[in-house]
């Protein structure tokens, strides 16, 4: 099996909103396998979304089990029709993207989320996530909605890292 070519900016297709998955068959599962292979080929990508390889369906993979410094995670997750049903907190973090080569920027994301998603068999799951993994999921779901992290980059002077009250 070969990894799939990744769409990169300024490819207009990255702005396309992806369609819900309704058929959970072997073809879907074979695609997921190929998508995972493509993720693993990317330079240290913790996630990938189907539209990044030109398939405009609500499919994403997130795997935060192999970060430099261990973070809370749910292992390798295949997310079909994922939906965030609850957000809490916010935090700035640095992001890059397979579809945006040679650029990184600071993005504000929710720190805690509750996520509903189906697996490749169509079974529904619910996850509580925090921090880095929650950020990765938000980054990937953005792809499904045709949004890239560069659409959300904040100025380096937008400092939400640390707020202190001085009297």
């Amino acid at each position, binding site marked *: 099996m070969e990894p799939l070519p990744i769409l990169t900016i300024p490819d207009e297709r990255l702005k396309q909103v992806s369609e819900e998955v309704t058929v959970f068959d072997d073809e879907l599962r074979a695609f997921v396998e190929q998508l995972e292979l493509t993720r693993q080929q990317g330079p240290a990508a*913790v996630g990938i979304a189907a539209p990044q390889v030109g398939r405009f369906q609500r499919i994403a993979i997130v795997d935060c089990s192999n970060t430099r410094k261990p973070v809370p995670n749910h292992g390798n997750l295949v997310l079909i029709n994922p939906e965030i049903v609850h957000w809490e907190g916010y935090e700035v*973090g*640095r992001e*890059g993207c*397979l579809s945006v080569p*040679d650029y990184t920027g600071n993005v504000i994301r929710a720190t805690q989320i509750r996520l509903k998603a189906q697996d490749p068999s169509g079974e529904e799951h619910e996850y509580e996530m925090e921090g880095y993994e929650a950020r990765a999921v938000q980054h990937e779901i953005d792809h499904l909605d045709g949004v890239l992290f560069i659409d959300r980059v904040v100025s*380096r002077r937008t400092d939400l*890292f*640390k707020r202190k009250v001085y009297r």
Partner: protein
Amino acid sequence: MNNWYMLTLTGEDRPGIVARVTRALFERNMNLGEASMLRLGGNFTIMMMVSGEMDAQTLEATLAPVASGLGLSLHIDPMQGGLHRHVVPNLMVRVSGADRAGIVARVTGALAEAGFNILDLESDVAGSAERPVYLMQIAGVAEAPLETLEAALEPLRQEGIDVNITPIEMLVG
């Protein structure tokens, strides 16, 4: 291949400076690379990479009237380097507290000695004229383990400088 020049403009801030300067460059077929504009002390400051067919003298002659018309001082240097040389930071250092002499030198000195290379530094004074509060954020890259850098900063904490260092876990998705 065209050369890159580092163009620096500073002076009193007013709306439309970037538009005027970049229009002048565009009309003469000059290209922009990386650029950074900041207001420092209410002043306009910009540094930008510019490339094209012009030599430094012609570029200077082209921009001098634009700059003087805007009341800005202009400086142009031929530069080495080019695009696509980004280095991803792996550490963030934050300093805050009552303003005091030598704080930047102390913190950056300790970091340099521990092999920390600064990629991005922002230093500001907040609070009020009566009670200034000093703030600094430094993004950088170091191979030394976090513990080594923590140890390097510890003496500063003993002196009451509020400094913390955290890893930046970059996300690629």
